[in-house]
């Protein structure tokens, strides 16, 4: 009985640690962000100014919020068809096949590549390709960043969706087959509807990752602190501006960066909450 009690205590302590950690993060973000919000008020969220010159300091987060939301949503849109079809291929159509086995490990391999390597590839391989199409002068900008982001989040969405699709009970599918349904009909009327909430959850998880991605985006987005004027125009994201500027920041600027971090935290939390709502609706 005492062993049970020890286990219970250990579990309680470790869950409490997680709780304290998240509370601590929120607390220190809030504390650090207060000077910026006191100086600029609500305008900090809506303003697009970002002027670090001493004497005329003025900070607003809107350019970065826009950059983050635009690149993440764009990445998600590009990612959905790729991840959805790949997961169906792996988990349903060719399940147990050698090709699907190879594909599955390749997808997992993609998930393991560090962000900086994706950035490298985007910088040296993808960017010149975009320049040669004539769509963009230098290849930096929202579209390039979103494309690389999409490739980065595909493995997450694919792996999870495939896992969920392969969990659809065989009895359901067999029942449909016995009624004379074709393979396509089984997939669209049985597999997808019963795995729907899980698939949506996997895409929301992927979106969460896109929101916070830093390094690859920094290398490709052009780091211009403005709302992007078009798909091929440079912009900046919340995670990227923090990574770029915290090193030499102090005083009000440091507070503004922390406030951007707090907003990013809130946006990610909001996305997760929306995801939970959607899952509940469809489940």
């Amino acid at each position, binding site marked *: 009985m005492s062993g049970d009690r020890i286990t219970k205590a250990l579990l309680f302590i470790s869950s409490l640690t997680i709780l304290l950690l998240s509370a601590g993060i929120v607390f220190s973000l809030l504390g650090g962000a207060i000077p910026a919000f006191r100086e600029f008020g609500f305008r900090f969220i809506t303003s697009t100014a970002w002027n670090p010159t001493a004497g005329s300091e003025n900070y607003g987060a809107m350019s970065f919020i826009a950059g983050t939301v635009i690149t993440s949503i764009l990445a998600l849109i590009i990612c959905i068809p790729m991840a959805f079809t790949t997961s169906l291929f792996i988990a349903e159509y060719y399940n147990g096949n050698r090709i699907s086995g190879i594909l599955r490990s390749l997808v997992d391999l993609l998930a393991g590549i560090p962000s900086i390597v994706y950035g490298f590839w985007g910088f040296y391989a993808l960017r010149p390709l975009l320049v040669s199409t004539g769509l963009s002068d230098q290849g930096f900008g929202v579209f390039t960043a979103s494309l690389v982001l999409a490739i980065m989040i595909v493995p997450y969405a694919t792996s999870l969706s495939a896992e969920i699709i392969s969990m659809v009970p065989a009895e359901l599918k067999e029942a449909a087959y016995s009624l004379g349904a074709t393979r396509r009909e089984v997939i669209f009327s049985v597999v997808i509807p019963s795995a729907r909430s899980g698939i949506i959850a996997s895409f929301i998880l992927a979106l969460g990752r896109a929101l916070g991605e830093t390094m690859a985006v920094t290398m490709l987005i052009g*780091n211009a602190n403005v709302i992007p004027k078009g798909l091929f125009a440079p912009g900046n994201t919340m995670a990227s501006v923090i*990574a770029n500027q915290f090193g030499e920041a102090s005083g009000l600027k440091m507070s503004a960066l922390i406030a951007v971090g707090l907003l990013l935290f809130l946006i990610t939390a909001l996305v997760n909450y929306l995801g939970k709502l959607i899952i509940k609706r469809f489940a």
Partner: protein
Amino acid sequence: MKNSIIILLAIVAFTAASCGGGGSTAGKQKQVTLSAAGATFPQPFYNLAFKRYNEAGGPMINYGGIGSGGGIKSLRDQVVDFAATDAYLSDAELAEMPGEVIHIPTCIGAVVIAYNIPGVTELKLTPELLEGIFLGTIKMWNDPKILAVNPGLVVPDMEITVVYRSDGSGTTYIFSDYMSKVSPVWNAQLGTGKALNWPAGIGAKGNPGVAGTISQSQGSIGYIGFEYAFAQKIQMAKVMNSAGFYIEPTLESFTAAAASEMPADTRVMITNSPNPAAYPISSFTWIIMYKDLAYADHSRESAEATVNTVKWLTGEEAQAIATSVHYAALPQNASLQAATLLKGITYEGTPVLK
């Protein structure tokens, strides 16, 4: 999440270890360990110099290239033996320090204007052209204003892409300090700082990032530390100095910029030097340290090691190392000034150097 916790623990452990480095040397008689942090601009020089010094029997020095701002913060928090910065401390910043802080210049770095224009190997720029290009009012490489300064230049009909530092940086500070001196428009619109509100162009992270972006993008221009342009063999523009000469960026023209009057505390920006042989965008980079080294739990031993290290760094041997990695050596007046300042450093009131 799991990964980030491991990383966090590693950072905490590392910081704890490096903070202890400065003070906990009393027990170890032989090997003194010093910790320092700051600017990344002179880091290639410091890394090599400290390694050589250590091999020659000097203390082990852990230098963290965390940026000038981080270095100043570390010195204020008294967690390092000395710090390094590209921009000297303002009177306000000095007043915030818990003790008197002195500046020791260690070498001269220069910011060069690097470009990538197909077929162009020589480009001359005036302050007016720099202002126009970096503020986005001159948009094309074949702009008549550029051609007027560079007669006979064959340039493609190509848009100019300005590349700037997306991170806060001493390099940006030096460049903007120069531009603010020569261009009233710049001074009013952007001013001087480690990060600016750029009206045009794209940002890249760090000197290597800007250098890489320029070498990969046709039609681009940007400002980088000399050694990075040199290492990557990127074309560098000649810049017109205050005497009206177009000066090629060379170690000699950087040193020439520093060979003028110097205030006793060495806090001076040597951009736009009046010397006719000087390259106009050069700057000292400094080691900053407390005038009395008995702070936190620093031992006399580590105080001696600190002063000796900095003294060596401004001496002939280390200055030769500086030129080997493309930083210009201190001119005589600056090294004399450094020696005088180092003699004034004390530990509990008595001079450290005998």
